[in-house]
Structures are given as C-alpha cells and as structure tokens.
C-alpha cells in the first residue's frame, strides 16, 4: 500500500515522514521519532499509558493512526520539562510519591496536564474523574491525587508571582 506523507509537530519541533497508513501514532512517536516516554500498555484503548496531548486534548495514541495527526501539534511527556526544570506535574509526582514502577506515569501525567489546562483547581473528585482512563497497578491512586493537588497548588503560586520574578 502506498505510503503517506505526514508533517507532525511534536513538542514544538516539526517532523516530516513517509509512513504506512496503518502505523499507529504511538509507534510513530516511539519508533520513528525515538520518543519512548510514551508507553504501550494494554494496546486495547483501556489503560491510558499511551496518553499524549493532541492540540492540548488528552488522547490515547494507540487508538489513532499517525496519518490522522498530520498537520497537528502533539505534546508528549518529553515535552514537559523546560530548561532542565521539571513541569509542576512531574515535580508533584516526584514529591508526593505518585509512582512506583512508573509504567503508567507518562500517560497519567499527560492526562493530568490536560486536566489542569482546562481546570486549574480541580476537586479531588474532578481529579479522579480525569484519570479514570489511566490505570495504575501500584499506587492505589491516592498518591497520584496528592501529586495532582501539589501541582495545582504549585501552578497557582507560579501564576500569582509577578512577571519576571524568576
């Protein structure tokens, strides 16, 4: 079958590739671009380990073809830290012990980043609702909820600081 030309922006960088139409977006990220932070868990649209942001919306990259993302802008877990500084959500997972084995973590973090972009101060219920599509077998979720609350507080503090304070 004929290949398809795609132009996809990932973490602010534009990539042009010839791909097979059946190439899943998660394989494009991992195998074409070497961005292995996005994990493949269940491969059946249930576990959320492959979650990325597609134009700021959380989606499961195992349930999309790369060709569907042509012309779109993606963010993966690799795109969060800036200048060696962890994103507040990453920092929250670190500080609040939001992970043990770490397998679900990149997808979990991307869902949370998606949540906090839409809702800066979510309730515990809203946090649990937002990570409903991300399965964690280690933590029992409580520490993840704590991590999200940490991140929300941190981001609220950052927003309060006068411009140029850091």
């Amino acid at each position: 079958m004929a290949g398809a030309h795609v132009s996809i922006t990932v973490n602010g960088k534009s990539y042009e590739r010839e791909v097979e139409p059946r190439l899943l977006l998660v394989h494009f990220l991992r195998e074409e671009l070497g961005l292995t932070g996005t994990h493949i868990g269940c491969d059946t649209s249930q576990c959320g380990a492959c979650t990325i942001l597609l134009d700021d919306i959380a989606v499961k990259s195992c349930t999309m073809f790369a060709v569907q993302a042509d012309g779109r802008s993606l963010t993966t877990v690799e795109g969060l830290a800036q200048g060696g500084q962890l994103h507040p959500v990453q920092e929250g997972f670190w500080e609040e012990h939001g992970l043990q084995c770490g397998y679900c973590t990149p997808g979990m973090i991307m869902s949370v980043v998606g949540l906090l972009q839409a809702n800066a101060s979510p309730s515990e219920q809203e946090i649990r609702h937002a990570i409903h599509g991300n399965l964690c077998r280690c933590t029992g979720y409580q520490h993840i909820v704590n991590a999200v609350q940490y991140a929300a507080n941190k981001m609220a503090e950052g927003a309060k600081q006068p411009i140029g304070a850091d």
Partner: protein
Amino acid sequence: MIPSAFEYHSPTSVEDALGLLGRFGDDAKLLAGGHSLIPLMKLRLAAPEHLIDLGRVQGLSYIRDEGGAIAIGAMTTHSAVAASELLRSRVAVLAEAAASIGDVQVRNRGTIGGSLAHADPGADLPGVMLALNAELVARGASGTRTIAAADFFTDLLSTALEPNEVLTEIRIPVLPANTGSTYLKFANQASGYAIVGIAAVVTVSGATVADARVGVSGVGETASRASGTEQALRGQPANADAVKRAAQQAADGIEPLGDIHASAEYRSHLVRVFAERALNTALGRAQGRG
C-alpha cells in the same frame, strides 16, 4: 497490535467522502473518531482495504438549537456533547450518557455519529436515541434522507444506513414542558461498555404521568424500547409506587445477551432495577425536584 494494511483517504467534504464510498463500495469503511473501529482493526476483526477518514471534513461538528429540534453534527465528540450547556439543560439524558462513555481520552476522540453508525450492542447512545425519538440524517449520492431512531438500529452492529451513505446529523426533537430525563448504566468496569444502560424520559401533567419513554442499551443485540413499562406508566399517578410496578416489565420482550460479564438472567434483573431508578430520577426532574 498492527492492523492489516489499508489505503488511507482523507476527504475534506461530504461529497468527496461519498465519491470515495461509491468508488470502493464494500471494501471501504468510514473512520470517524475511530474508538470503535480502530480497536477492531487492531484485532483484525475488521480489515477494510480503504479507510475514509472523516476527520478533515469541515462542518460536521456542531450543536445547534434550531427551534423545534437540537441538531448535532455527526462528528461532534462525546466530550463536546457532555459539556454542552444546551444539552445539559434541555436533554440531560443525552449529556449524561455521553459523559458516561469510556473515559476522558475516549470521549475526546469518539463521536456521536461514529458510535451510532457502529451500533455496538454495548454502546450507550442507541438506547438514548430511541427514548428521545431522535432522527438521524444520512446523505447519499442521490440526496439526503431522515431516518427515525426506531428504524435505524436494525440488528447486531447493523443500521439502516446504506453502504454508500454518510450519517451527517442527529436531530433531537424538543422535549415537552414538565419533562425530566436521565441516563443510568451498569458498566463493565474495564471497558466502560454498558452491561445495562437505561435512558428514561418522563413527562408529567399535574399529578399524572403523561408520557414515559425508556430506551435500553447493552442488553440485547440491539438497543430497544421497554414498551411494556412505558405503557404501564402512562396515565398513572406520578409517584414511586407506579414506577416500581411499571419497571417490573422493563425486560419484557427483550432477548438478553449472556456472556462472561453477565448472564442473561442477571441482565434482565438489572434492567428492572435500573429502569426503576432511572424513571424515579427522570420523574423527579419532571416535577422540578432536581
């Protein structure tokens, strides 16, 4: 899991999509949000040779108040339906059902039209469409036609859509005054699919139930109406006792599926229990009790 190879087409208009459907016929499959079709393709239970992606077709994603009806574009995502103030305030049953589908990521990609055209027996929306007497608008090479929800779901995974038609719009007739509605489901915990899903729409007139419509998803091979319950409730006093009695007939006439998730007997039992609960909520809303 890698799907079978296919040729990818991304038309930018419904006309072009129809042209491609006409050209490739049975070998082609329309791709909407992909959250039913892509998992099947990965399992190779579906292996279309041509995939026609509707993702770049303009003008199929909207929710509009058109006076007598609310019109929803077929490519509107479940997230957008769930978040719509218009639907939440006027057609709670639909907004609630959309909010109960899968999880956040699934709702961000999955579409109302894709779900209805796929007609999965475990999907939430078919029963909602039946309870709302919705109309489904299909465009084909020879024009546009409107299909009543009652005629749309013909069989397991099958609809009244012709192979060369595209579902473009869902129309929800305005509900009469003093109407309350809700969607309640018993979901499979892993997939979120309905083991039993009840869409209840109740209209009261004073202290009497003027009309009741109950759509049942997840139970049989296709969604259906619990017509026995509807008839038993119409004209009855608008109270919990009448609902309790009527709900006993909610599984009548439905041939329930039995599988590893729930036996046929258990599904029938759940239909009665959830019909009672959903009808009570809808009735309360119709009476202005939230």
